């Protein structure tokens, strides 16, 4: 994975696209989970959601960042 992405002449960090992808995945998963109603059973729904995002983001990074 490239360290930096060239965006119209501005160098953006390479994790940015990964971050956005993680965000998208998270949105899909979130919609699914709230449809099932998982959040109602959890103690701290927002924390669950945040942790989920961190997991997705890290998993993507670990697999892509070599």
């Amino acid at each position, binding site marked *: 994975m490239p360290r930096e992405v060239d965006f119209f002449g*501005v160098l953006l960090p390479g994790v940015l696209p990964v971050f956005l992808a993680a965000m998208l995945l998270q949105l899909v998963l979130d919609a699914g989970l709230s*449809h099932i109603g998982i959040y*109602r059973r959890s103690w*701290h*729904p*927002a924390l669950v*959601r945040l942790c989920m995002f961190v997991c997705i983001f890290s998993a993507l990074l670990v697999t892509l960042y070599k």
Partner: protein
Amino acid sequence: MWLRAQTADWLRTEGERWIFVAKAMLASFSALWLAFRLGLDAPYTALATTIILAMPSSGMVLEKAFYRFLGTLVGCSAALALVALFPQAPAVLFIGLALWVALCTGGAAMHRNQQSYSFVLAGYTAVMIAVPAVDAPDRVFTLAVTRVTEVGLGIICSAVVHDVFFPRRHARTVMRTVQARYTGFIDFCRQVLEHRITPAQAELNHLRFAADIAALESGRAAAFFEAGHSRWHTRQLHAFNAAFMTALTTFYTLHRLAHRLRAAGGVSGSGRVNAGAVDAGAVDAAGAGRVLALVEPMYAHMAAALRDDLTSARLAQMRSALAGGIAAARAQLADGPALERAQQIDFDTAVELLERYAGNLADFATLYLGLTQQKRQQISDPGAYSPRTPPAIIAASGFRAGATLLVTAAMWYWLAWPATVNAILMATIFCALASSSPRPTVLVQQVLIGFLLAMPLAFITEFLMVTKADNFYPLVLAALPLFACGAYLSSGPRWAGVGVGLGMFSATLVVPANLMRYDVESFVSSELSLTMGVVVAYLMFKVVLPEHTMGHRGHVAAALWREAQNACGARLHRLKRRFDNRVRDLLSQLNAAAGPAPDAETRAVVRQGLTLLELGHAIIELRQLIAASHAGAARDSLEAVLRLLAAYLHAPSREGGERALQAVLDAGSAVRAALPDAHPERRARLHTALTDLHSIYTSLLDQLSGEFHAA
């Protein structure tokens, strides 16, 4: 025991506020630390973002964060486009910017809540990026990227902190609103059915309910961003709002009919009839009295039924009891001497309305039970809430914002004082922000007070405390009191504007850049120019079109008429709901502008609005019936009614109104003539048409008499 009660009380009131302050500070300084750590160019943007995003509940923070990011992106793109188009021509650039700001502020006035904020932000972000780039167009891209990065950083910090640490879930507030609304409505219905409420009080109640509908909608929009708020919830809440509006409208018509019957029945008792009309009046009164005697027990029964919890079993029971009551009343009527035609119509309408109301109430209660018990139920797509702002106000807010930008830009040019850039920004920001508030001058005034308070405090903080800090943590210690004070003030309802002003001002000035420069002269001139910007915004609101603010009585009244005209002509698809939403939205704007105790003129507008609401509903229903029916004498007569009504609504005059009344009477005869040999399904439709004609007739009568009483 006493101590525990006191502590619990403190925790519920002041404790909440201090937790909020702690969260806001945590978000602010973590964003600042990250901005320093990452070596961003203007760390104060990240800090200012967290201060702006400090809202009481996590749903609100997330919603605002989302729309802030969106607005920033759009604003930056607009700035880049504008600077790229006119790099060498500042005058044209400023005119372009003014147009953009005007467009965005107008768009903000058309929307509600944070969507409106997104528009405001798109407008002033463009100014923030483009104005510093006037002298150095090549820097504009870097400026834009920095801005987006830092806003993004602030957003992430705020969202994480407010959502994770001691979150206050907005979904709970929404549920509380739903419960309060439900009990409020049931109480209101009971009071009306038991005749314990005057028409003036009822109008006020309707005004409050309109505000409630808007509030629930904005709460739903905020809760949407929280974890665990599914699509199903959104649809459910939309449906709840829609069912509430339908029930409210039917109930209003029902209430008016009951009131009218009672007034007519009271004529003979009060003996205030002049000699010529005695006979007719007495006959009328006797007839109305009989109708009243038949209908009254059903009202009482309904009121009694409302006293208990409305479970589905009890609702079914209530409806069957109502059907029994109606059958009994019909039988009683058939036994006695025949009623006069007018009274017969009154009776039929009362019965039809009661049935309709019971149906609406059942829908409403079912939705409520589904929401509170988290029971999933199938609902047809209720569609979103659609707001409505009078176009004159949209145009005026756009014009005002654009003019402010041009005025301050001219000041910048003629004063040749570099710090005026700050004034341009502040004037534009507050002109745009306050446009969507019902009392913009009060808001800007509060912000101004905050700025004035912050001037000495920021100076002291900067030069006596921040200068002594040699590290990040002492810096936090030095800046904390000022920011905490701002956050604390902004968490209470009374001084929220002052708190926001204090926070914004300090965030812009106190926070050091990566390379700190302590320059008293430039600091003071920044202070002065920032304050000047707010003063300019205040003056602009006072001077430029001061009457064109959100919820201004005259504009709302005109917009209500336009909505009624629209009901006659617009495409039928979803028209009823749109009409309902828009009229309620206008009323809620009126409520926001009028405050807790509306004056007589405002109440007149409310009464007018409710009459037009009733009229519009009946018109839309008639149009739906016409669209579904076959050609014939009845349909032709209904079409004639609609034509004349549309003409009346476009140019209200006594003659037009009377022509429309006559047409309604003719149509009534035509529809009734078609009744005997209609098959049952068509008969039901014809009955609905008769009810609608009746409510058109009575609201037109009210309208005509009201106009000429007032004149």
